[in-house]
């Protein structure tokens, strides 16, 4: 069944407290390769049947109005994923 994946990330200029906490704990666990971490959200919207252009437009609108808050977040991608692939 095809799904639409919506990726939302905190805006770059906004401090991301969760990402910061992860950056802090990585070296303690021996992961020293990473300069920064940001934590965002990934939504998977499932659809009965095919993903039409109209449905994709709905997903884009839902992403912009409900799934993200433009004051603090950016929608970085709205993509169709088909498991059959």
């Amino acid at each position, binding site marked *: 069944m095809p799904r639409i994946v919506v990726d939302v990330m905190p805006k770059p200029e906004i*401090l991301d*407290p969760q990402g910061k*906490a992860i950056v802090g704990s990585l070296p303690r666990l021996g992961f020293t390769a990473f300069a920064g971490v940001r934590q965002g959200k990934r939504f998977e919207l499932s659809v009965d049947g095919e993903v039409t252009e109209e449905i994709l437009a709905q997903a884009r609108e839902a992403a912009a109005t*409900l799934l993200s*808050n433009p004051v*603090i977040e950016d929608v970085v991608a709205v993509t169709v994923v088909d498991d059959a692939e």
Partner: protein
Amino acid sequence: MPRTTEFPFLVDTTIPTFPDSGIKIGVVTFPGTLDDRDAARAARLAGATVVPLWHADTDLQDVDAVIIPGGFSYGDYLRAGAISRFAPMMSKIIDAANSDAKLPVLGICNGFQILTESHLLPGSMIKNDHLHFICRDQQLKVENVNTRWTGLYEQDQLITVPLKNQDGQYIADEKTLDMLEAEQRVVFRYEGDNPNGSRRDIAGISNEAGNVVGLMPHPEHAVELGFGPDHTGRDGITFFTSVIKHLLEAGK
């Protein structure tokens, strides 16, 4: 059953009460609202008649002011206030707050988050910088006494009310913050330690007209002796008496 009446009263129970004002204050309830009964009690103790407003209804029932209380309106797993903003009752409140009548609206905690998601107030809230839920008695400085909800406080008065939330870090871009400061729309600032990383220690703000006020701490939990901060705190009652006084003077 033995009686406990031999024990002395710990607190002075002769608390001042306020006369019935005839002012009608609506308290909005979403399915996950938690502090609606507290908000209603606070408004009642201040002399208002409380009108319960259900999120799915569309009739404001001629209320003179509205409180959007704290809680987790729709679970708030997505973002605090994200879903509630679209409730039918919210569209009515947004219209009434922006109308010429300038309906007074107070958003407490989740109510504040809903007001920012609804764009009635600028900025937004993210997780506390320490990532934990925090519940504590919080000192605030009242920096603007010209809003509908703060008229009976004194300029720069220090008050103590409970703070309790997980997503209480107020943020906005520098331009917006400067604008808020310039227009004296920072209504409350955290005194002492900043409990959540909020920009410029901001605890509460208002809209341009001063009828819409939002804050993270909970004045409605500091209205009765014995049940507020350190058992004696009552600093929160003035929010509710302030709006009633304003409405009475405006001829309501």
